């Protein structure tokens, strides 16, 4: 089941709704999220970076397990973290700091594996590429950088390289507000939005700008159609513009080049967007605290979720397994018990003293099933073969009895023969003796 998760910059908790039925789920408490600060970690739990006050010098990151409304794990990073992202498997969490540093934590241990200076000013958004091998970060200074995680972890090559990033896109002149990734690993496009009223389309394989689209107002949120025909841009004037990517367009609607239409119902600025591929739904969050669900085919609103009084600033769609039926549930839980417990909090500093931990990694072993099969009929064939060959000791053992029997019979035969022989000998001897007597008598006679 697909769950819509939304959070707000003022404390309204985290709202959850079932996208299909519209039923509200558990509401997770005490959350004032930063933009792009809410993420689902491998669908196992929710993580959200918190910043009560934009000028505060410290923030924290909270974890909620799906089953409990209270935040269960609280981490205190070295500086306030604004955007937060997890890779699709949920093994790493990255956070972008106010100073422009990017932090990379291992979820299972909470260890800070890497921290590097990525931007001159605060990081505003972080996105993993589809194959999780690249990280794309946007910053307040308008810069977008693409990082290869492989390089980040390779100490040798990192020293040889002149810069850590793969690409640095500097065409935006003001703060980058949102980045979305497209389909594909190395050949994907990304779409970025900025306060300079433009959205730009970039190629990750070439590392260059493909298209620049100027909008009538500042775009704060972008969502990409999975087929990459169009993308949706949520603007501060309350409209969601539809801009062409791979589609025919008209230039006559007055919005500007490449903009082929708009969805509008919001009176207040659109703050975040999400696209649900299942059912082709576009979700938009607004400053009025509502989450609207649009059917992009008909361009109608088909559902509205009321989240909070304050502006919604994060919408995430999470795919969760449907809650198991009572009977099955027990076994399922016992087999995957670790899903219930949350990992330890994220560490503040890279702790290099614990060398032993460097050597070890906490892993979840793959859930493979490899069951024994029925062997009897195969065994019969094997054994029969063995018996027929009569070569093996095992088969021989079974023949012993037969042999004993044979032996006995041979013994009898032997005795019988012996008796015959004895008789014969006796007969011969007597014959011989008789003959001799006769011969003797004959010899004597002439």
């Amino acid at each position: 089941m697909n769950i819509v998760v939304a959070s707000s910059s003022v404390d309204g908790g985290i709202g959850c709704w079932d996208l299909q039925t519209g039923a509200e789920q558990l509401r997770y408490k005490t959350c004032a999220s930063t933009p792009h600060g809410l993420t689902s970690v491998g669908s196992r739990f929710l993580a959200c970076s918190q910043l009560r006050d934009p000028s505060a010098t410290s923030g924290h990151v909270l974890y909620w397990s799906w089953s409990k409304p209270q935040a269960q794990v609280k981490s205190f990073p070295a500086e306030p973290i604004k955007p937060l992202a997890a890779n699709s498997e949920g093994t790493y969490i990255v956070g972008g700091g106010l100073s422009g540093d990017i932090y990379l934590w291992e979820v299972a241990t909470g260890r800070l594996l890497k921290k590097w200076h990525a931007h001159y000013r605060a990081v505003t958004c972080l996105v993993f590429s589809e194959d999780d091998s690249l990280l794309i970060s946007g910053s307040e200074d308008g810069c977008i950088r693409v990082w290869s995680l492989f390089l980040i972890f390779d100490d040798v090559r990192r020293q040889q390289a002149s810069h850590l990033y793969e690409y640095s896109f500097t065409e935006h002149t003001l703060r980058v507000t949102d980045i979305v990734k497209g389909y594909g690993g190395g050949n994907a496009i990304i779409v970025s939005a900025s306060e300079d009223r433009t959205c730009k389309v970039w190629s990750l394989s070439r590392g260059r700008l493909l298209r620049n689209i100027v909008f009538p107002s500042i775009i704060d949120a972008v969502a990409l159609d999975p087929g990459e025909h169009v993308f949706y841009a949520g603007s501060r004037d309350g409209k969601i513009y539809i801009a062409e990517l791979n589609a025919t367009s008209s230039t006559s609607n007055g919005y500007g080049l490449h903009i082929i239409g708009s969805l509008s119902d919001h009176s207040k600025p659109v703050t975040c967007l999400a696209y649900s591929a299942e059912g082709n739904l576009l979700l938009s969050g607004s400053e009025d605290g509502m989450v609207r669900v649009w059917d992009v085919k008909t361009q109608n609103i088909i559902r509205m979720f009321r989240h909070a009084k304050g502006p919604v600033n994060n919408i995430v769609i999470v795919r969760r397994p449907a809650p198991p039926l009572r009977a099955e549930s027990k076994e399922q839980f016992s087999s995957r018990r670790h899903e219930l417990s949350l990992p330890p909090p994220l560490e503040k500093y890279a702790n290099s003293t614990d060398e032993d931990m460097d050597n070890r990694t906490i892993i979840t072993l793959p859930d493979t099933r490899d069951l024994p099969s029925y062997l009897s009929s195969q065994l019969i064939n094997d054994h029969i073969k063995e018996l027929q060959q009569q070569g093996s000791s095992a088969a021989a053992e079974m023949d012993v009895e037969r042999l004993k029997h044979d032996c006995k019979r041979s013994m009898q035969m032997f005795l019988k023969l012996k008796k015959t022989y004895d008789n014969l000998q006796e007969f011969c001897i007597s014959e011989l003796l008789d003959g001799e007597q006769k011969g003797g008598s004959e010899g004597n006679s002439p």
Partner: protein
Amino acid sequence: MATFDQFENMYDMRLKPVMLRCLIRQYLPDEKRPLSLNHTCSELPKLVSIVQTFRLLSESETHSVDQKLINTWRSAVDDWVNRLELLLSSDTSDKCWIGICLLGVTCLECSNQRFLSSYTVWIDKLLSRIQPPADSQLVKIASCTSISDLLTRLARFPEVKKDGNLLAGKLVQPVLKLLNEDSVEAVLDGAANLLYTIITFFPASIHHHYDRAEAALASKILSGKYSTKTLKKLGCCLALLPKSKGDKDSWPLMMQKILISISDHLNEAFQGVEEEGKADEARRLLVPPGKDPPSPLGGTSFKAARNSERLPASTVSSLMFCCCKMLTSSYPFQVTAPIRSMLALVERLLMVDGSLPHTMLPFMTSMQQELICSELPLLHACSLELLIAIIKAMRSQLLPHAAYVVRLVTRYFRSCAPPELRIKLYSIARMLLISMGVGMAIYLAPDVIDNAFNDLNSLGCEEVETSPAKIGPSTGALVQPSNRKRKHGAKTGPLEKLDTTGPDVETPNMHQMTPITVKIAALDTLEVLLTVGGASKSESWRSSIDSLLIKTATNSCKGGWGNEEDNIFLPHESTSIWTDFQLSSLRALLASFLAPTCVRPPYLSQGLELFRRGKQEAGIKVAGFCSYALLALEVLIHPRALPLDDFYSAYHNSADGASHRFPEITHFSGQKQDTMFFNGMRTTKQSAAESHHDDLYDRWLQNENIPVENLEDHISRPKLGEKPCANDSSFTNIVEVSEQEPAAANSGALERTIDEITVQPPNFQESIPKSHEIVSAEVSMIPAVGRNAEGTEIEYKRSSPACDQDMVSGDDVLADKVDVFENTHGNTCSTLSNAEKSIAYVGHLESDSSMDSFPDIVDADPDTDSD
């Protein structure tokens, strides 16, 4: 009896009880009838197969028919079971053996109800057959197997799980006793089977005997004197043992113990062939300083008798198999894996190549060295297996160690020669590429390509046999050892590279022969590399790989298609190996066409031809793939720019030609298309400014629907009247190109163009090169200059050999020429961006006076104004 009943057919239910009784009478010995073993031997498999085929014991579908039948059947099965029990308790081992085996089959075949009501009785009877001291081996093995089958069936009923655990608990002791006391391998094998079943289905039952089980298994493994198969089974049981405790710590503890044991064995074995200090280093990783080492594997009391004459390769390999199994089977908890020590172990093994470090020279005898060298391939294979298991288990969490792994793999790749190991290495490379994506591809690419080049360019044994007629130009480079070095350097021309594939039959060099299986692995790896990393930083190697792949595919398909039928004269593995090779080469070829690149695929026409032929002629596997490939390439040949139907009605307006170009960028994005993109932007801007709305889009639709026939007439009229051999797709190609013409091109020009297409063939040989120049001038987007398009130059060179080839082959027959022309036209045009296509076209057609006509076209291009 039932002989007078008429049965409907072989599926008649009434037949079954009758058959069963008949079988009992015919085959099963009883007290009165003595058993003739030889007779039964041949009959027993037949009996089992009849029982299984007709499901004679199932008693199923009883709901459907009358009570009488149910009763007859039940009593027949009762008889069967009674007879088996009688046999089981017989005192001669051969009867007993038959009873046990058939009971095993009965456990699998009988109805649920019967099974649940009698499994306790059966298991007791079977169990008693393992225990008494003086019984035949075959009986013991058969009992183990039958019990294992019984437990497997039992595990399917969750409601008797508790009972099952209790029963299995009773079994553990006798099984361990078998393991400990019986030294016959076949019995051990049977006991291992049973233990595996118990651990898998009823892990809790073994909990209390954990240490004893560990000791029993470990002692057998460490003794190392059984066959690999049995040792692997035992290793598998040992690997699954921690599941029975079901807590967080058993798994890491077991892993640590096994690793320590491996390391100890290696310390002894590698004395003299590795640098001193490696042993200590390995130990330090395994047991962190300041911590106590765990008790040795199998308990403290156990000490394996070491034999210095023999290398413990079989022990080490089964222990490593055990590690692999632990890493790849599920465990209810997250576990702490000693990743560094495992990787260090892999490295330690791979780095020993049998050479002696200088410091060690005096201490080794040549015999010792010989001994080690003979065992090394096996150990290397194991360590590669372990590496594969590590990659599988760690998935994304390997990232911090990925660089280390890559360095290890690439270093070993350079020196590794045995085919089996190279195949494993290729599969490791594939796994790394798939699991780590683009980032990995960038770094792994050079080494993968190096190795694949060597393997694919060298002589294959099978190749010589299947196509001995194929003799290429002399290949001096082949025998030189320097061949191993980066042959694919960016400057090497594709054609000269290809020649090395020609096998030199006169002087077969065994060293250079690459088994076909290695070639398959190399091709598969190239395919993955192209799929994953074709887009990123691939410029340096793409062209050489493309040419290598087309050459390999062509060669593989040259000698006819592999036979996919099983050839009963060959051992099983080699039946369809040639087909596999063809399939792999075609798959890699398709990947090379589809992978993102900055140029149009230069060998597309040859590739299409191969796929077409394959589709028609080859067996089902290859033909199926070929038709898939043709489908996949369709999008490449006709890039789609469909209207969004959702938005169409709302924003129905004509579209600019330029906007159609976006799909190019996403799918085959390249330098040129990108510039095209900008151009498109400019074009659109401009046209927007002028509010100049052509209705090209509508016209496109029209063209596709109606005038195609007209055009066709048009084309075929002048010269091809009696030979309309060109197929439809070629026409749509032409039409499409025409459609790409800028707005200003009027339809009159279009028709003229098409006329000229058909008129032109006789002298287009000269026309092609010229048109290239023109085209490259156009492509640079600055119509006035157009002399400095270096980026585009290359690509024409690449495409021109293809054109030339085709042209040479096309002779006087006009139809052929037209075909050729289409090919070249496809080639040439495919190298162009669409907006330029029509211009190129016109230039190309009017080659004689191309410069004269040029200005007209430039006028027609809206871009000109902007510059």
